[in-house]
């Protein structure tokens, strides 16, 4: 099919719509009366709420660390410091998402806007990576001197196996949760719910965008 044929076919579509497309004025007026936020703005309260809860938690753990620094056992202190650092990074991502929500203007050029929207969605994956990364500290914060002095070899071995396994899983997931692994079975198992689909599609879009921008011929 030649260019002119394509354009003429599209023009005949215009003609068809002109003759058959009906406009319901009353329903159009109803849209102007809807008292709802845009989809993007509706994401803001949840993010702000999560940040507030995160800050309260971080404040609480920071206070514990500062006040107990000289008396607490090193397992608790190191576990709490790692956990609070990772939570701070996750809060940072939520702040980044709020900034992106504020910056997105859908009347701006499409490539730029879609990139911001895709980055907004896909950054949620970073929060997941940080959540996995903090898993091992939940198996170490309670260890104290009394446990070390009175424990038996079986308990030590169990503790070591559980903690080392979680360290391995956490680090492995942190490194491997990325777009390139989206086809792998474990990835699809972890992110199989429909709530993850927009995030995975956003990753695909960012990848497509790279190709789109680099296309020269």
């Amino acid at each position, binding site marked *: 099919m030649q260019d002119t044929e394509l354009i003429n076919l599209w023009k005949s579509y215009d003609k068809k719509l*002109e003759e058959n497309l009906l406009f319901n004025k009353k329903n159009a007026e109803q*849209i*102007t009366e809807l008292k709802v936020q845009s989809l993007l703005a509706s994401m803001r309260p949840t993010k702000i709420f999560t940040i507030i809860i995160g800050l309260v938690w971080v404040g609480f753990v920071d206070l514990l660390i500062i006040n107990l620094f000289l008396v607490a056992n090193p397992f608790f202190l190191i576990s709490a410091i790692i956990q609070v650092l990772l939570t701070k990074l996750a809060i940072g991502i939520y702040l980044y998402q709020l900034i992106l929500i504020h910056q997105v203007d859908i009347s701006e050029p499409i490539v730029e806007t879609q990139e911001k929207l895709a980055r907004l969605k896909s950054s949620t994956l970073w929060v997941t990576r940080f959540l996995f990364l903090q898993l091992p500290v939940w198996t170490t914060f309670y260890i104290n001197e009394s446990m070390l002095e009175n424990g038996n070899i079986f308990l030590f071995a169990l503790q070591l196996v559980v903690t080392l396994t979680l360290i391995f899983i956490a680090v492995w997931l942190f490194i491997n949760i990325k777009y390139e692994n989206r086809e792998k079975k474990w990835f699809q198992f972890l992110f199989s719910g429909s709530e993850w689909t927009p995030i995975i599609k956003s990753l695909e879009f960012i990848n497509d965008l790279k190709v789109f921008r680099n296309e020269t011929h």
Partner: protein
Amino acid sequence: MKLQADFVKTIEGNKGIIYKIARSYCKDPDDKQDLIQEILFQLWKSFDKFDSSYKFSTWMYRIALNVSISFYRKERLRQQINQPLPESVLYLKEDNTTKDLNNNLDQLHQFIQELKELDRAIIILYLEGSNQQDIGEILGLTVTNVSTKVSRIKERLKQKYSSLNK
């Protein structure tokens, strides 16, 4: 009230393009109606902020395409709409278009829907008669880049048609 009246009048004047963009990104009739509603809602939300120093068509295309591309990426579309209206704003009545034309249009739509989201936006704008500079402004690309992409997409469409005729 004047703003509302102006908006409704503007939408009525541009109903064809809104319908065509929604049709290009959503095949399912229910999803398409939801997308039309979302586009109209977003146009209304931004209507009073429209800067008249820009072309109205550029502004409208940007919003309609931005909404369509991000809407397309979502799952469970119906549940995500703000507040679905019971009836449609735009709908096609039974038409007397020839079967041949309808088949050709369905074929073209299918080919367009097989393209990536951004390529789809480019070909819609091209078929709508936008020049390369306007397409560049709407998408945020240089004229050279648009020119390259338009040629490549047209070539791909031609290949699809030629494979169909084999």
